[in-house]
């Protein structure tokens, strides 16, 4: 378990002081895939680097399994780092060394004997699907292959935590998918806790089970991906979530609604999981003297659960619409009136 306790960080630069983190609290459970999302400069990179103490907090503490990491020094600190793998946006492979040598470096640092090293590197190469590239140099590999080497190198010492610093941001969408699948496999098969920072909400949606949203050094929202995506509270979170789960009414529809003369309300209805499969609208029409027209709908899958979002034009008297709203909520949907 990784715990951030009221962590703040101030950098002193020539232009004055920069507050990179402000009172951040976050708990990451064992086996989680924790996404940390934010725009550049949000402080997510500083936060990630505190887990292996490449950065230390100005105030507050970072603990791993109850052990404070920000006060470690010397051999203890290096011992901790050997148990935490890290991969990078720019891969950070040694261009002067072969794939084999790159993956073997962490083992050399542990003074592994050549036989153990050979066996371990072969095992890692096969795990990341690069068995035929042992003798290649990084500049002969594609971006996706380089990141696979980075992953193999990070896993060499059997770490219990993997830190991913924008690991897919330099890759094209297809390669990104393949790398994310590999990370998921690592989480599942090797039971590693993965902490990844990204500015791409799609990455979070694809593999994370927990998400934390950062804005200018503050942790503005956190929770399970399902909770946060189905019901984003903060403006920043809504901005991110909207790009993968659209819920904005197209302008042409807004214009056509202006022609409507009858009394109506626009309701945003969210279904999660089971309720998404039931035919709630049909039931509503039968029970209430309200005409419902679906003007917008989207359905996405998060963590194996379906999330449906509908924007419904409900035409009828105010009381009838309110009654219908209550009925929908009783049936497990979240209903929100859309103010235009």
């Amino acid at each position, binding site marked *: 378990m990784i715990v951030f306790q009221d962590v703040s960080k101030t950098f002193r630069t020539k232009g004055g002081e920069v507050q990179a983190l402000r009172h951040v609290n976050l708990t990451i459970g064992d086996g989680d895939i924790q996404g940390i999302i934010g725009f550049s400069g949000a402080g997510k990179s500083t936060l990630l680097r505190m887990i292996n103490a490449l950065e230390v907090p100005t105030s507050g503490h970072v603990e791993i399994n109850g052990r404070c990491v920000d006060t470690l020094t010397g051999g203890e600190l290096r011992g901790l780092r050997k148990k935490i793998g*890290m991969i990078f946006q720019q891969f950070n492979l040694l261009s002067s060394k072969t794939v084999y040598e790159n993956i073997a470096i962490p083992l050399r*640092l542990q003074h592994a004997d050549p036989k153990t090293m050979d066996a371990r590197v072969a095992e890692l190469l096969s795990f990341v699907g690069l068995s035929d590239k042992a003798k290649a140099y990084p500049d002969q590999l594609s971006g996706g292959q380089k990141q696979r080497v980075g992953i193999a190198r990070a896993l060499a010492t059997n770490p219990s935590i993997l830190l991913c610093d924008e690991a897919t941001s330099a890759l094209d969408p297809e390669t990104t998918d393949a790398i994310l699948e590999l990370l998921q496999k690592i989480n599942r098969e090797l039971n590693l806790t993965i902490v990844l920072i990204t500015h791409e909400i799609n990455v979070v949606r694809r593999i994370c089970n927990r998400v934390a949203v950062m804005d200018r050094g503050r942790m503005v929202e956190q929770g399970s991906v399902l909770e946060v995506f189905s019901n984003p509270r903060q403006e920043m979170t809504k901005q991110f979530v909207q790009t993968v789960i659209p819920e904005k009414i197209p302008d042409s529809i807004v214009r056509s609604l202006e022609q409507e003369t009858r009394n109506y309300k626009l309701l945003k209805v969210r279904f999660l999981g089971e309720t998404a499969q039931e035919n709630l609208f049909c039931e509503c029409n039968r029970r209430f003297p309200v005409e419902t027209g679906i003007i917008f709908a989207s359905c996405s899958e998060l963590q194996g659960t379906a999330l449906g979002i509908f924007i419904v034009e409900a035409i009828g008297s105010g009381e009838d619409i309110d009654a219908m709203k209550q009925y929908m909520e009783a049936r497990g949907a979240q209903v929100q009136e859309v103010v235009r």
Partner: protein
Amino acid sequence: MSPLEAILEVPLSRVGLAAEETLYMVFVSLFLGSLIGLVLALTLVLTNEDGILGNRYVYAVVNAVVNTVRSVPFVILLVFVLPLTKFIVGTRIGTTAALVPLILFIAPYLTRLFENSLLEVDKGILEAAQSMGATWFEIIRYFLLPEAKGSLILSVTTGTIGLLGATAMAGVIGAGGVGDLALTYGYERLNFPLMLFTVVVLIAFVQIIQTIGSHLAFKVRHH
């Protein structure tokens, strides 16, 4: 007397000895100067503001020493350090005596060249090294030096050619060498053919050194 000796008006064995003296001075001072230069350059790179061992006092001292020695022109350095030369070598004159000022000249020069080569190494690689729990010594050995190798070879090449030029001046303290031959026999006796010949020899030296250096650097960088 061979026809070439007749034109040069000096025995070829004298020319051969001069070449030998030059090569001796260049390679001995290059070897020791490179070692000192590498240690100082690593110190500068590791202790600078962004370095993994950031220490502004060590950095400031090394930086100042390197600048100070570099600001003395070689011909002045030659005579200025004579007492030191006497102390270390036991004599003020001769080829071996010239090694002391030559090393003092080339070490800070190579320090700057090496510093640039080492700074070219991507900061991300050093961060990766730290994330693996490497000690500073392991970072130098497994990350910094291998990654900077190609560039370091080119720096040594540039330094060697600079050193070759400096040895010509070492004649001032009777060090001999090709440059000295050109000055005493060629210039002072107005022996133009000899002067031309020594220039050709020096050009050949430079070409050979540069070709070898570039070739090695290319081989290291392209697999």
